[in-house]
């Protein structure tokens, strides 16, 4: 008799737990407001990515096409896996002194680990992370980028 009672109570409890579970999913089914889907790419115009988000390394240029990079090479040094290569050249400035300036700032997006050591260690705040993420391409070579724009110059200290 006790066995039967146990059997029946087990059956009842089991069914009850199943119905409880179904009530959870059922609730969500009948409450479309619970849907949390954000429709990328339809929401592309309104999609906000947090400003600190690390999408790719960029070198901001002002409207005169000037950047702040002094080609000191610290970022290249602190980078753990050789993502950054700073190529510099020597140039004569107005005073006739030869000076090291940035020639090409090579950034390999396909290697970067986004540890932010370069940005944090940059003495002149020349580089920063941009929250872009639409970077998928068919050709791997396109992921190696030159960050300084053509013909850009070092920004004068104000």
């Amino acid at each position, binding site marked *: 008799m006790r066995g039967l009672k146990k059997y029946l109570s087990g*059956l009842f409890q089991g069914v009850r737990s199943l119905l409880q*579970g*179904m009530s959870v999913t059922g609730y*969500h*089914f009948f409450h479309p407001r619970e*849907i949390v*889907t954000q*429709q990328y790419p339809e929401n592309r115009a309104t999609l906000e990515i947090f400003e600190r988000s690390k999408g790719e390394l960029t070198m901001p240029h002002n409207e005169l096409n000037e950047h702040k990079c002094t080609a000191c090479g610290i970022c290249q040094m602190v980078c753990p896996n050789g993502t950054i290569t700073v190529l510099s050249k020597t140039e004569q400035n107005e005073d006739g002194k030869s000076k090291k300036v940035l020639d090409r700032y090579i950034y390999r997006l396909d290697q970067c680990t986004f540890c932010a050591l370069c940005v944090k260690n940059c003495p002149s705040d020349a580089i920063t992370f941009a929250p872009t993420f639409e970077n998928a391409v068919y050709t791997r070579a396109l992921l190696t980028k030159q960050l300084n724009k053509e013909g850009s110059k070092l920004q004068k200290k104000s």
Partner: protein
Amino acid sequence: MIYDFSKLTSSLDQLLLSVLPPFWVLLVEALLVLIAGLAAFAVLGMILVYMERKVCAFFQVRLGPNRVGKWGTLQLIADMLKLLTKELVTPRGVDVLLYNVAPFIIIMAAFLSFGALPFARGLHAIDFNIGVFYLMAVSSLAVLGILLGGWASNNKYTVIGAMRSGAQVVSYELSVGLTYITMVAFAGTMQLSGIVEAQADGWFLFKGHLPALIAFVVFLIASTAEANRGPFDLAEAESELIAGYHTEYSGLRFAFFYLAEYLNMFIGAAIAATLFLGGWMPLHIGSWEAFNAVMDFIPPIVWFFGKTFLLVWVTMWFKWTFPRLRIDQLLTLEWKYLMPVSFFNLLLMTVIILLGWHF
């Protein structure tokens, strides 16, 4: 009054008889039925897959396919095109004959059951006088395909999946059979059209008291298990056996397995609707003439599909809520719970019939 499709079919029959000899008429009719059946099969399959993807999305607080066509309606067309043009891989070491035959057995088993379903009055391929018995026989054929496919694939996962499925289907066949018998005893006929007609003044679920309700629940569970649907999808348990018995199938062959799974689900729901919810019969309540007349305005085919899809939705609700059973739990459920309950239920039903307690 409810439209009788047999008028249409018999007039078509007359028309054909007037131009062709009887043998050819039979042949042409068989061909027509085949084409209609296949078309319905394919369309239904696509609707079901689409429905599952949408329904599960809504259970899961997301949207589901919505980028291909409006609300993702063309998603299944794309899937079909892709599956049709996908390479058919025949792995090394398979038993080529059985490997190729298995998907067809499965899809054929589903198709055979499909033929006996009464979609509306007079709208079925064959109205056997032993319709229920036929369904029982045919629906257990699918396991052959699964076993063969799993065995022929020369892969350990598929063998385990197939063996699981074998144990599962053979066990659950019992409960399904017992619930069939319960309802046949109640209806007094095995003919599906007769069963539906007998529900003109109330569905069996309501007329049959407790035993009908119990039989209904048991049937829903057991038919889900027979169709290898979650939470009974041990045969293809993705987290354990990759894709179970159809791991090695690709392209169209895989599509057959995929389609058959959904159609079996549909067939299970359709049989449940026929046996318990009055099939295509509109909702009639005893002597409420006006109400009954209003209900009759809704065409029977809508009733049939409405009920079936409702039950399909319920099985989806199970599937997307519960974790999968383990093989011993699965067999315990059958042998320790469902089967004794069904036996007891059959007894109860007989008593009720003998005492005339039903409505």
